[in-house]
């Protein structure tokens, strides 16, 4: 497997794990909501958090992947995107 394929594979896996986790929590949240359970909101929060973290994890994977393959310019650009995302989290 070449390095580009490796980065693509990491990005795919990171996104799929986060989306699957988010979807699981949200479906659980809906089920709890319809059964009038007080836990519904916690599942909704966990699901939304898992979804919102997916792009952040994806960017981290790209920073590491491009740095590992010696493409420091793209690694630095990805790092800048991560900094902007963290800025948005603080604001």
């Amino acid at each position: 497997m070449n390095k580009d394929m490796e980065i693509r594979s990491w990005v795919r896996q990171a996104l799929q794990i986060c989306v699957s986790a988010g979807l699981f929590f949200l479906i659980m949240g809906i089920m709890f909501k319809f059964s009038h359970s007080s836990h519904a909101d916690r599942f909704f929060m966990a699901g939304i958090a898992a979804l919102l973290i997916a792009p952040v994890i994806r960017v981290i994977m790209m920073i590491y992947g491009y740095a590992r393959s010696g493409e420091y310019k793209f690694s630095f650009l990805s790092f800048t995107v991560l900094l902007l995302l963290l800025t948005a989290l603080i604001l």
Partner: protein
Amino acid sequence: MFELTPFNFIIIAGFGFCIGIMGSVLGIGGGAFMVPFFVLCFKIPIHNAIAISLVAIVALSSSVASINVEKGIANMRLGIILEMLMVAGSITGALILFELDERVARAIFGCILFPVSFLMLLKTRKVSAKKDEELICPPEKFERALSGGFYDSSISKNIKYSVKNILPASLISFFGGSLAGLFGIGGGIVQVPLMNLVCGLPMKAAAATSNFMIGVSACASAFIFFRRGLVINEIAGAIVIGVVFGALTGIRVLHKSKSNKIQAVFAILLFMIGIKMLMG
């Protein structure tokens, strides 16, 4: 106060399913449809509607990107360059929104939909005028750093292309990001024509790369809305479930279909929503 009933869930998730299918094919987040849908059909305040829309766009983008990245259709290197300025624009847009009155935000959003619908119609005509084979760049240009290639199953050919006009494209990308933050749209409405017409990417690569990018810019704005407690969790949950399943269905079913006809219908629908938003 909105109450999520099983009936409402079916309506919202069903709508999200349609958005997921369209978004995965056209490379847009669908915020231009979701925000008016929540405001007009469920009387949800526009700031909450935008917040919910942004969460759904992140879900749509992540679902579609995971498949397009694996297939090599999304150009990740170009995506990083454009999304850097797009994220900066998105944060700027989200912060400006809190200073805006709801009526003003609604009027601006309505007005923006008209040129966007025209742009989409125009793009449909341009794509129709060109055959897919004409979009293939000469092989000597292939060695550029941002060049890319993918297998297009609709024409059973390997498409290779190079990227041009990266500097003006980056600046326009900032504008696309600002729109995303301001109005809860993905920004794909700007990014897809930008990459297709300015950067010279084939339509499918432009749509896939746009889907790859819009999640990050929407995420930046969504963080701001989420921290301010503007996301209505149960509605976000319902629309996300629909959107994710729609995206996964759309990418498999519609990947081989021609998107120009769907896009024309899309443009007309945008125009109608614009009128409705302006009428309040």
